[in-house]
């Protein structure tokens, strides 16, 4: 019973598909001149249960999909926790959450990170 409740809550918060919108997001980054790597599914992500991660211009990026925009917004703090002790963002865009962490100091002026949000459709 307890397990069922946990599953229900987590599914409501983090479930859903979102591949189409995530693919569109990554395509927009490419069109805008950024260089995203391949994005692969993240197993047991602390941010959501439908997350893919890669890099964009050497910045670590994770894009998570949620059932709703509210759920994406609610997961922002989990995204910031994933960012850790470095420059980063956890910005909802519709039902997606864009999380970026400049762990390699590849984006000292934040230009790439800003573009991740500005170019999002």
């Amino acid at each position, binding site marked *: 019973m307890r397990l069922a409740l946990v599953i229900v809550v987590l599914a409501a918060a983090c479930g859903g598909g979102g591949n189409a919108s995530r693919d569109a997001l990554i395509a927009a980054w490419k069109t805008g001149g950024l260089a995203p790597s391949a994005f692969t599914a993240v197993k047991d992500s602390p941010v959501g249960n439908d997350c893919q991660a890669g890099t964009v211009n050497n910045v670590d990026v994770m894009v998570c999909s949620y059932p709703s925009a509210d759920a994406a917004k609610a997961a922002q703090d989990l995204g910031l926790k994933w960012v850790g*002790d470095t420059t*980063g963002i956890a*910005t909802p865009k519709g039902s997606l959450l864009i999380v970026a962490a400049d762990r390699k100091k590849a984006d000292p002026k934040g230009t790439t990170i*800003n573009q991740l949000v500005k170019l999002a459709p």
Partner: protein
Amino acid sequence: MRNTTILIVLAALVGGGVALADDGGPAPHRYGRQVRFVGIHPIPKSEGGGMCNIEGPHVHIYAANKLEYRDHEGDHYFVGDPVAYKYDGPKYAYKGPHPIHVDAVVGGEPDTEYCYIEGPHYHYFRPADDPDFKMVGDAYFYVGEPPHAFIEARPAYVGINATYRPLVYTRPVVEVDAPTGWIGARAEFVTPGVYVDAPGVVVEDHRGWGRHGHDEVIVGGGAVVGAGIGVTVVAPPPPSISIGIGVGVGVGGGAVVHEREHHDNGKHRGWR
């Protein structure tokens, strides 16, 4: 009971926590050494310097100072002059202190903060649609009745002028008469200790910086001394005196300021 506890914990995790801010609303989380910012802002020299270009909410692991930042929904919002930090994007000239409608720049709930820079300066945003701002000579002047909060907080933030004064950068030079009602002419906003003598064209600043307690601001014939530091004085024949005012020097209304440098309100006619 245990089921309820589990649900509460999960809801807190998903919903962003239960800590409360001073105003009773939810306080933004901080993780590790994160410091929250919103909008573009300077990067400390120790972190490489220049400007951070992230416009939305973001985090760094360095602190924000009190004079140049205000709180906006738990994020630090920069209210200083970005050009002092090598910002080269669109910029808008202001003269004197003025309100900033932060929500109009970076979104969020309505939030009015205040800039206390006394002379000509830039921001990267125009004023919000506000009849209390008047544009004269391509610079914005605040001519409204300053709210009590604006006046009350001035002692805490007016020190920003001492911070900016030694910075060498190209400030806007506004050379027009300030409009009637300009806040810079109000007694509450005139920094004491600055006076202008004519026709000898001597400007002295008795606030205790510069050699022997004075700044080097004695200039004639339209020359500019100090490349953006302190006061620039342009001296046509008496009895007329015109003054270009550097950041950090408060001068009452009525000074004649000639336009030496234009800005184009984003039309990119060139700034220099």
